[in-house]
């Protein structure tokens, strides 16, 4: 039998999360003798590059594609083409919209990831949670699934009425100062934080889509001398992120396991190429849950968490 060929398509190749995911995929591919080709968009939200990548994989007669989609609903027709060409398509990290547009999804339970940090923030504030002033630093204007799930998860954990759980920004809770997009990077995080601070300088809780955005937000707060009295929560649990929890930059972060997503993905492709078996989703969910744990050194009652020492052991990148 020929070599098995797998494609990995990430949103960008600058976010450490995707860098790690690529490394994990490469390691696993090496181990299983799978050939791997990696592609990425130029920026988070660069949909066209991902479409071209899928098409290249079709031209290459790949056996399987692993994709973290930038535009979760627009990508569906390209994914369908790949599947029509007999290619196994697995969504990593970010579910497609609808989820079953991919053959399988290996991802963090992003809603749960958001819910954990939301619960932690509410519990940490205690009674003050009633009067919280919350800023939301989201991903991109097109509201991809990860963005919606984490944002709405946080709200649900914090005790905010979600209105439509598929839409960001339709909530009426007065504690919400506002939403802004960050493109999931430091610069976007800083500018978005500054913008929201202007709307309300008394912001004291900040939800961030990921750790690069959180790092940017922190710089903005530091610039105005508020770095110590604002609670930043985030998602990712990369080593720099956990370090940031230790350093007090981030209060708590929901740790994800990208290496596992990548490894499972490559394995699934290898299996599928060998005998056509399809991966099974986690019981009761429409995707395979690669797990999530809250990392914080200030645990609160009722919210399961691990400390940063353990977080450092499990972290990636």
């Amino acid at each position, binding site marked *: 039998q020929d070599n098995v060929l797998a494609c990995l398509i990430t949103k960008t190749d600058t976010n450490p999360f995707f860098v790690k995911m690529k490394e994990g995929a490469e390691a696993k591919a090496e181990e299983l003798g799978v050939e791997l080709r990696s592609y990425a968009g130029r920026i988070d939200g*660069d949909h066209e590059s991902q479409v*071209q990548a899928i*098409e290249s994989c*079709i031209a290459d007669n790949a056996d399987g594609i692993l994709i973290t989609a930038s535009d979760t*609903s*627009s990508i569906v027709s390209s994914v369908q083409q790949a599947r029509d060409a007999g290619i196994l398509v697995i969504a990593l990290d970010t579910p497609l919209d609808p989820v079953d547009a991919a053959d399988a999804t290996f991802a963090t339970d992003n809603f749960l990831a958001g819910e954990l940090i939301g619960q932690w923030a509410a519990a940490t504030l205690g009674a003050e949670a009633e009067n919280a002033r919350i800023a939301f630093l989201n991903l991109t204007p097109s509201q991809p699934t990860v963005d919606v799930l984490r944002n709405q998860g946080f709200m649900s954990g914090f005790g905010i009425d979600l209105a439509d759980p598929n839409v960001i920004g339709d909530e009426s809770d007065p504690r919400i100062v506002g939403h802004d997009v960050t493109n999931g990077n430091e610069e976007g995080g800083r500018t978005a934080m500054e913008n929201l601070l202007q709307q309300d300088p008394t912001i004291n809780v900040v939800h961030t889509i990921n750790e690069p955005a959180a790092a940017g937000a922190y710089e903005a707060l530091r610039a105005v001398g508020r770095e110590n009295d604002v609670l930043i929560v985030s998602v990712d649990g990369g080593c720099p992120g956990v370090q940031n929890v230790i350093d007090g930059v981030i209060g708590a972060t929901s740790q994800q396991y990208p290496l596992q997503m990548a490894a499972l993905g490559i394995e699934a492709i290898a299996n599928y190429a060998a005998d056509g078996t399809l991966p099974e989703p986690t019981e009761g969910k429409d995707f395979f849950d690669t797990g999530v744990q809250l990392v914080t050194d200030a645990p609160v009652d009722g919210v399961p968490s691990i400390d940063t020492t353990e977080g450092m052991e499990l972290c990636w990148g």
Partner: protein
Amino acid sequence: MSKTESSTQGYEGGLSAGSADVAQFAPERRTIVKSIQHALHVNPALIPLFILSLSVAGFGIILGDRFFSPFSLTLILQQVAIVGVVAAAQTLVILTKGIDLSVGAIMVLSSVVMGQFTFRYGFPPELAILCGFAVGALCGLINGVLVAVVKLPPFIVTLGMWQIVLASNFLYSRNETIRSQDIQADAPLLQFFGQSLRFGGAVLTFGVIAMVILVAVLTYVLNNTAWGRHVYAVGDDADAAQLAGVRVKRTLISVYVLSGLICALAGWVLIGRIGSVSPTAGQFTNIESITAVVIGGISLFGGRGSILGALFGALIVGVFGLGLRLMGTDPQWTYLMIGVLIIAAVALDQWIRRVST
């Protein structure tokens, strides 16, 4: 002194004889290289065609069947269809010594209008598509009036319009993506250009066919109608064209409106390509269309170049993109190569012009 029948200037007697030579020409000893240079000079679209053939051959040799298959080669066409259509619009504007930085935004807004008019207001898709074209034409009209009548520099007008149109797009669409499945079910006409003809492995989408027809029609119009000659004349020297009797304002406005209409067409093709209607699509279309035009040998100073060149330019970028991707190189190498290609193509062009004059 009074008028005389013949010359008052006695010294003109010296004119009676004498040859008419002015500058000398070196004897014609054309080597093969010189002949190629001359051919390239006379027909500038040959340069990108030449680069295109060379790169197709190069990747063909390196990658063999994986690249040189009907599927891969037609895939390139599919991948460049949108940029190719937009580059045609861009070429028209650049021929008039302008530049249109709003093409990408107009394309997206038109596609959003086609989608939202169908789904938000329940228009029949035919009508919604017409509305999309109307919006494209309107944007072009605003550009054209600001350039031709208010006489603002095209770069600035379209830089401003880009921001205005893109922001309008986000505000109007409320960032909503219309899902491919819904379109397929309720308004398949919107995805018209996504349909395809298959011959063996070759897949020709209607979008690709539209691009080819568009290029053919525009080539005809530019070369064989008075309007086409006027477009070149306006780009060459607008004042001269005006004095020679060309209606410069009208020509400029018509070019920008046509550019808007072609962008709307690109918007429709875009829906066919990505299936859905997404307000965030096309972020790189501006720069890609300009890249295609530049590699296609169209002078940014106006008046020189052809639509065909822009098509070849787009194809060159497509060939490099797919070729390098199939070789499994880091995508960043593709961008690096495209950068080198842009500079090299123009340097080659310059060199040929210099040597063959």
